[in-house]
């Protein structure tokens, strides 16, 4: 392209840009009006709501939160208008009459497409940016704190602005790309909805699958896998750099493809087949997987779980593929041929499924060798504590390996028919580690008695190998006191705060009596803890508890007594990344702890 042609294209593009803004003046006025109308409501609401509740909070400034509230509403409105404008402006590719008009104008296809994209961006971004900049000033001025705090607060709105701009760019680039590939506006809209809606659902469900068969599997939803093709989440999930790259790639592809696009595909068929295929596969995979889990969940009988899973998968995926193919093709023509990629997808998934159900190349039974291991740590995944103690001693490492193998043995000997993936409870529990535990139910290994160390007992073992790699396994809902003494001891050493923390650091012991004799006026029978305020008495109590814990574990019915031991020195909480002033170990004392109960009674009598 000569420089004259380039200059001409820029000049023509600028003319069309101005004309586009002029012709969308009504939309711009509506857009601005809605931002002001709803934004002011949100701002005022933010101011007035917080005034009643936050009077005592020193650092709180209602103007800042009100600014954020208005900024969020502005983000939402800009997203909505960006969608509307994108559909409108790119529709010249999907209407034969518009194609005639724009195709014959003295401007190249690429220049026209770029101009259209820029129009949408400017119209949706500029009003939003102006409002956000004003809000940044408001939140900066509203704070009476230090300069850095002012800057920080202003940056909150600035951060929303940046994320919103990223979101708009990514979506415009993506919709532009879909517009170039599709022949009809309806195809474009459907593709956009399917990709943004079905893709993350499918990916989330797919990531859940290993946890149904691989005990010890650490289920972390990967943001990249879950939202990589979901521009609706741009700026608000994954990193900002990713979305910049996403925008650049899809925009570049669209500009490349628009030149060779067959204009006669308008109102007719997809101009480029690849996105059509991807959309069909995404929707059929996601719906299939959702139906698979649902079919498993529908029956409490766990036999034939896998059969039901696949029945749901085939029915859901085929039906959704069929419907979308019908919509895209406008009929049944070439339906047979279109099934080929579907069959390949199902076969590929079946292969992955087979690998996972077979144990994923020894994932279930893998335990590193002792001479490969540099250190081992356990994380007690309870809610209020997450202590980790790295063990490097050779004996400890060997004991940890023994514990790990005992855990595996418990899983191996349990009923493997119980694949419970699919119930919403199980899915929820798999995601949130709720009361029902992991989705792989292990009869025999399930603990009947909670170890009330503030939550549920899950075992997380992490090996740091000599080569720097880490191996982590997380096992749910195990009663550690079913294991051998050696295994239990090493776990206590590595993860049980009762054993990890030095009893001499205990600053306070509080005892609660939750029994039937409790005073009806109070929730609990108060216990005068003054006896255990003395360090020697406190130390004796803790040692007794430890001794009986080591002997009995948590076996036995819980008594009415709860002990809370507080350790006063600040400790770094790795899970939540802050320093705790105080750590509390809570324990419902089992009735088997005769000595402990006797000591507590003694302390009560002495008062």
């Amino acid at each position, binding site marked *: 392209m000569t420089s004259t042609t380039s200059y001409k294209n820029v000049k023509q593009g600028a003319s069309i840009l101005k004309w586009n803004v*002029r012709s969308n003046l009504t939309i711009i006025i509506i857009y601005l009006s809605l931002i002001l109308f709803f934004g002011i409501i949100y701002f005022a609401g933010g101011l007035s709501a917080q005034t009643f509740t936050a009077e005592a909070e020193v650092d709180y400034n209602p103007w800042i939160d009100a600014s954020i509230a208005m900024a969020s509403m502005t983000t939402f409105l800009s997203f909505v208008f960006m969608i509307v404008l994108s559909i409108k402006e790119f529709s010249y590719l999907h209407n034969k009459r518009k194609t005639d008009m724009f195709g*014959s104008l003295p401007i190249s*296809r690429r220049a026209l497409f770029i101009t259209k994209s820029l129009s949408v961006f400017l119209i949706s971004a500029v009003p939003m940016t102006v409002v956000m900049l004003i809000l940044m000033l408001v939140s900066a001025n509203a704070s009476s704190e230090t300069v850095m705090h002012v800057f920080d607060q202003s940056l909150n709105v600035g951060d929303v602005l940046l994320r919103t701009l990223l979101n708009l760019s990514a979506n415009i680039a993506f919709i532009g790309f879909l517009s170039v590939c599709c022949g009809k506006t309806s195809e474009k809209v459907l593709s956009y909805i399917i990709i943004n809606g079905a893709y993350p659902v499918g990916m989330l469900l797919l990531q859940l699958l290993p946890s149904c068969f691989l005990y010890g599997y650490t289920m972390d939803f990967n943001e990249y896998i879950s939202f990589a093709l979901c521009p609706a989440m741009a700026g608000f999930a994954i990193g900002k750099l990713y979305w910049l790259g996403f925008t650049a790639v899809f925009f570049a592809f669209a500009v490349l493809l628009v030149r060779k696009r067959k204009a006669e595909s308008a109102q007719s068929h997809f101009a480029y087949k690849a996105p059509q295929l991807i959309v069909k596969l995404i929707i059929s995979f996601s719906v299939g997987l959702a139906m698979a889990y649902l079919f498993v969940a529908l029956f409490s009988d766990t036999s034939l779980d896998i059969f039901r899973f696949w029945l749901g998968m085939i029915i859901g995926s085929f039906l959704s593929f069929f419907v979308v193919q019908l919509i895209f093709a406008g009929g049944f023509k070439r339906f047979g041929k279109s099934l080929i990629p579907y069959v390949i997808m199902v076969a590929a998934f079946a292969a992955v499924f087979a690998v996972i159900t077979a144990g994923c190349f020894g994932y279930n039974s893998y335990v590193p060798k002792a001479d490969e291991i540099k250190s081992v740590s356990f994380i007690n995944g309870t809610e209020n504590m997450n202590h980790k103690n790295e063990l490097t001693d050779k004996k400890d490492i060997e004991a940890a390996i023994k514990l790990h193998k005992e855990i595996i043995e418990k899983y191996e000997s349990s009923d493997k028919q119980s694949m419970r993936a699919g119930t919403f409870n199980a899915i929820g529990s798999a995601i949130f580690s709720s009361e029902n535990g992991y989705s792989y139910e292990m009869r025999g290994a399930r603990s009947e008695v909670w170890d009330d160390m503030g939550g549920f007992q899950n075992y997380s073992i992490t090996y740091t190998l000599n080569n720097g790699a880490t191996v982590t396994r997380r096992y749910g809902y195990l009663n550690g006191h079913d294991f051998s003494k050696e295994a239990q001891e090493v776990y206590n050493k590595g993860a049980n705060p009762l054993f990890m923390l030095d009893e001499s650091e205990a600053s306070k012991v509080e005892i609660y009596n939750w029994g039937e004799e409790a005073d009806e006026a109070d929730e609990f029978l108060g216990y005068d803890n003054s006896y255990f305020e003395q360090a020697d008495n406190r130390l004796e109590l803790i040692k007794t508890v430890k001794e009986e814990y080591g002997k009995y574990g948590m076996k036995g019915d819980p008594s009415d007594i709860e002990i809370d031991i507080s350790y006063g020195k600040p400790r770094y909480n790795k899970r939540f990344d802050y320093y705790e002033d105080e750590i509390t170990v809570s324990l419902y004392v089992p009735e088997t702890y005769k000595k402990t109960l006797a000591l507590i009674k003694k302390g009560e009598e002495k008062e």
Partner: protein
Amino acid sequence: MIEIKNVTKMFGELKALDSLNFNVSDGSVFGLVGSNGAGKSTLLRVINGVFEPDAGEVLIEGENSFENPSAKEKCYFIPDFPYFYNSSTIQNTAYLYRKLYPDWDEEYFNKLCATFPINTKSNIINMSKGMQRQAALILALSTRPKYLFLDEIFDGLDPVVRQLVKRIIITNVTDRNMTVMIASHNLRELEDICDHIGLLHKGGVVEEKELDKLKLGIHRVQIAFNRPIDESVFEGFDVINKSRQGSLFSLTIRGEYEEFMPRLEALEPAFLEALPLTLEEVFINEMEGAGYDINNLV
């Protein structure tokens, strides 16, 4: 000059244009006629860069027209159903074209707005089909194109406006050497204005000639004999069509009048008359030759 060189255009398996080859000279008014689905509108779209040809090329003043803003600046295309935005008026659409077309003539635009009976501030989409065409014409002619392409331009125009349009086109052709290419089924109007005709059928060119030569190259002849005569006497003539009612023969003969008339007179007919065909009759006869006639369709 517009050069159409081996242009082929496929829509899937359908060959809409099949290796078209012809030129359109500057300053001519070229009429594009043909059967339904012959490829007239497709050809216009290929010339204007809306469609990319699958083979061959279209050159406008030696430059390929596809993706060439410099070539397209000199052209203006009014399709059979011109598009206007809901809020488009002649005035606000002119705002765009003023910037896009370097030869935009504001004075001429105002003159045309005054000439045509149309409100330049009303929404074009709310106007009748004919008025929408007028609006499109005003905008088109105001860009002062060197090459004007019109698809079914007379459709919807009343007879008075049709005369006006023809007059304005002719004026531009004579004053500015504008080249016009008109695709239409309204052969009566084309006959008045065109000097060249291209006849398309099934994507190919059946005939492409100056209009006069086309019309003069084919005649309707009525010849009667007062004696029995064998039809073989006509074998030496290029007879496209023949029918007989008793001793009266009605023939459509291709050839120069000065060439076939003496030979017919030599047959000593009782009655002999030769008339040039109208463009419509030429079209029908040529199409019959190409196998597209009413007997094949019904």
